[in-house]
């Protein structure tokens, strides 16, 4: 049996782990005596569940809303994949879109455009960012840094209540005359300016979402800088906190230019200005009567100035989650923690100077192209540093293959594929061939779908016991993982082949009308669509598993044997509070931090893992000089 540490409680010596267990049990009893989950603070239900200012509840609100939007975005994609796999075939399920979009169940091209634009918008702005930052960040950052709440709890609430109406406006735009936005998630003018009314709704919805992100990011940065626990220096942050910190700066500084761009496009659409409309534009044989003199490329610059940092907003929190799970699952510290942190900060800075690699084909000139391809090659270095550090962290670890660990391990090669296939796109010469083909779709979906979304799944499996006091079922978690893993690769890998063969993106028949694309489209598209349906089926065990346990947890059925720290983690959200955490203030006593984030199997220490807030056992002053300090520390074999 391992040696156990003893600590002094009052006048008694106790085993540290037993003392902690007793303390937690006492805290839980006190909480229960105070009157259920929300303690002695009898707030009306609307303040507790709707307009709550508790970061944990707001995190859950974000999480539920974002998961619903992810499901919706996924369903839009299923409809698109049905059309791509079997173009022009009538499907009964297509009739949900209405007679105007899919007469007799056959999808119309303009409706396909609507699905495409809204799939991207919903997945990015309403699904992943709110899940990664709003849900995981909100719930975990204050707990991991030992803070009683976010710095501005009311602002936090307002931030959610800007996001929710933004999402509702996006949903409502489906019912606008002429349908919803159909100019892609990038909304390039002049098409977006002359598009139907849904685009205006899209812009208004975006203004709400941008405001929400802005308020959220100010809150995160202030919380991390100001409310971190005593002793928690920056180099003692769990990597997840660093990821959220840099992400918040990206949101703070990159979103306002998109807000400016959205305002300008709104002016173009509502007030008849010509910011993005050049002179002499002819639409459907009719010359536009606007003043002209605008510049469509101005939108692209403003948009990508946001949207490239946005890519890192999508991936950094995922890397943070994966780093937490890997450190815990390998039972050893992250390899190269410091270089990972500096790489993340460097990545944040560089992400502001690479945006025009999305615009190599706009004719902006070879000098500017050379500049942006150089910065793009440079920015790949920090990503590789982070990914390599995570890979090397596995070396020599006694890995626990839990469900969250499976998702985290799958993230590594999947993000690797996504990242490395991005390099040819960042080189101006190679991009001429690959631009706007399915290769691009394959590239960024590998980063975001089997990359970020897998990390999110891992995070849900990992922190579910934190939120509910129950573990998700392991068997069904594995079923969910393996089917998803196979199917998601079946969808996205053939896209590289399609793209290299020159199949353009955004074709509603998947390329069947082009001679050069017809063969490969016919060979691969049905298979990819079947994989998409397989991926949908793979989510069923997850959804059932999730709701079965969530409902049981809501009814107060806890997993009694589980304890507060089922993964035996060192970070404070697990080690320094109960699971689920105390409703108000998170911690009974604000923790003080004494050590780094991942002290697993530290040589010379008897404990297998040492939480961040554990002080070193004070060595009694030697009396009379005869007793060596090391023998004075009480150790006992159990």
């Amino acid at each position: 049996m391992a040696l156990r540490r003893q600590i002094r409680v009052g006048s008694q010596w106790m085993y540290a782990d037993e003392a902690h267990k007793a303390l937690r049990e006492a805290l839980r009893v006190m909480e229960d005596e105070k009157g259920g989950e929300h303690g002695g603070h009898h707030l009306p239900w609307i303040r507790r569940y709707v307009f709550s200012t508790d970061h944990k509840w707001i995190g859950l609100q974000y999480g539920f809303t974002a998961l619903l939007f992810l499901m919706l975005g996924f369903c839009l994609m299923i409809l698109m994949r049905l059309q791509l796999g079997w173009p022009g075939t009538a499907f009964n399920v297509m009739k949900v879109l209405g007679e105007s979009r899919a007469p007799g169940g056959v999808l119309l091209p303009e409706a396909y455009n609507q699905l495409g634009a809204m799939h991207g918008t919903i997945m990015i702005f309403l699904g992943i960012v709110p899940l990664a930052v709003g849900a995981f960040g909100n719930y975990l950052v204050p707990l991991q840094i030992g803070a009683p709440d976010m710095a501005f709890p009311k602002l936090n609430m307002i931030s959610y209540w800007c996001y929710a109406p933004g999402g509702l406006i996006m949903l409502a735009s489906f019912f606008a005359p002429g349908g919803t936005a159909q100019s892609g998630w990038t909304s390039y003018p002049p098409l977006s300016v002359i598009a139907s009314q849904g685009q205006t709704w899209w812009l208004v919805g975006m203004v709400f979402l941008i405001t929400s992100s802005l308020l959220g990011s100010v809150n995160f940065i202030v919380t991390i800088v100001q409310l971190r626990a005593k002793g928690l220096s920056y180099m003692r942050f769990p990597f997840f906190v660093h990821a959220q910190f840099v992400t918040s700066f990206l949101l703070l500084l990159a979103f306002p230019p998109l807000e400016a761009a959205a305002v300008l496009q709104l002016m173009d659409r509502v007030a008849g200005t010509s910011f993005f409309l050049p002179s002499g534009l002819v639409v459907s044989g009719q010359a536009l009567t606007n003043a002209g003199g605008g510049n469509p490329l101005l939108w692209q610059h403003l948009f990508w100035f946001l949207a490239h940092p946005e890519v890192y907003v999508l991936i950094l929190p995922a890397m943070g989650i994966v780093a937490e799970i890997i450190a815990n699952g390998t039972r050893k510290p992250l390899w190269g923690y410091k270089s990972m942190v500096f790489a993340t900060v460097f990545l944040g800075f560089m992400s502001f100077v690479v945006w025009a690699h999305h615009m190599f084909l706009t004719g902006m000139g070879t000098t500017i192209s050379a500049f942006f391809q150089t910065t793009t090659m440079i920015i790949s270095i920090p990503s590789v540093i982070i990914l390599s550090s995570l890979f090397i962290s596995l070396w020599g670890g006694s890995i626990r293959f839990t469900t969250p660990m499976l998702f985290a391990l799958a993230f590594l090669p999947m993000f690797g594929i996504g990242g490395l296939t991005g390099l040819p796109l960042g080189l101006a010469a190679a991009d001429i061939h690959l631009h706007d083909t399915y290769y691009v779709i394959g590239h960024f979906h590998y980063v975001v779908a089997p990359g970020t979304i897998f990390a999110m799944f891992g995070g849900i499996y990992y922190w579910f016991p934190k939120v509910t006091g129950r573990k998700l079922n392991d068997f069904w978690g594995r079923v969910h993982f393996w089917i998803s893993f196979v199917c998601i690769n079946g969808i996205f890998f053939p896209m590289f082949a399609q793209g290299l063969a020159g199949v353009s993106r955004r074709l509603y028949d998947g390329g069947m009308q082009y001679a050069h694309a017809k063969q490969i489209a016919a060979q691969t598209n049905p298979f990819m669509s079947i994989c998409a349906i397989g991926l949908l089926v793979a989510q069923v065990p997850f959804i059932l598993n999730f709701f079965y346990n969530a409902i049981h947890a809501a009814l107060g059925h806890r997993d009694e044997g589980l304890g507060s720290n089922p993964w035996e983690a060192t970070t404070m959200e697990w080690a320094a509070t109960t699971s689920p955490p105390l409703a108000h203030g998170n911690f009974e006593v604000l923790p003080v931090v004494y050590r780094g984030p991942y002290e697993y199997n530290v040589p010379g220490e008897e404990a297998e893992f040492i939480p961040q807030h554990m002080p070193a056992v004070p060595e009694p002053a030697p009396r009379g000089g005869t007793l060596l300090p090391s023998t004075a520390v009480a150790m006992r074999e159990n």
Partner: protein
Amino acid sequence: MDAHASVGHAELEIPYNVHPRPDTGVYNAKLGIWLFLASEVMLFGALFSSLILLRTGAETWPRGYEMLNVPLATFNTFILIVSSVTVVMAWSQLRLGNLKWGRIYISATILCALIFLVNKAFEYGHEFREHNFPKTNNFFAIYFTLTGLHGLHIIGGVIVFLYFLGPGAKMWAHDPERFTNRIEVVGLYWHFVDLVWIFLFPVLYLM
């Protein structure tokens, strides 16, 4: 149990809400407003960049001083600078514990903002009578967008000042230091809004 409840309540207090954190030197709201202003710099920076790009790409671009009312805008510039002074005076009076004079200076700031807005309304009315609308050309498009967005910021500031003059001032009775901090924070925002105008004025009216 009682002792526990009071401990629990104490934990609810967010640290460094009023007093600066020793190692960062700022209280929460002050850091928050500086971050917010950083994002505002990016917002107006993007709009100014758009103006530069549109203007350098245009074959002809009207001269601001030929199209717009420079004397009125000069007066408005002066008014905004005065309001920046009064908001600092309000803060310093509150720091001295003088609520009465603090409120007088806040009222003076609101008055300046309202004079600015009324002048701006005269200017807009004049442009509309001359049939100069946002859709007329890109000069007026960017003029109305930039000054309109700036005007919205002024209106936002006025609403916040009115709140601190009215219901928000109740905080003075139980937490004067926090109230003073709030005026400092809104003051920082107000200086920023003035600074935007200091850039807008030469770029739109004089060049």
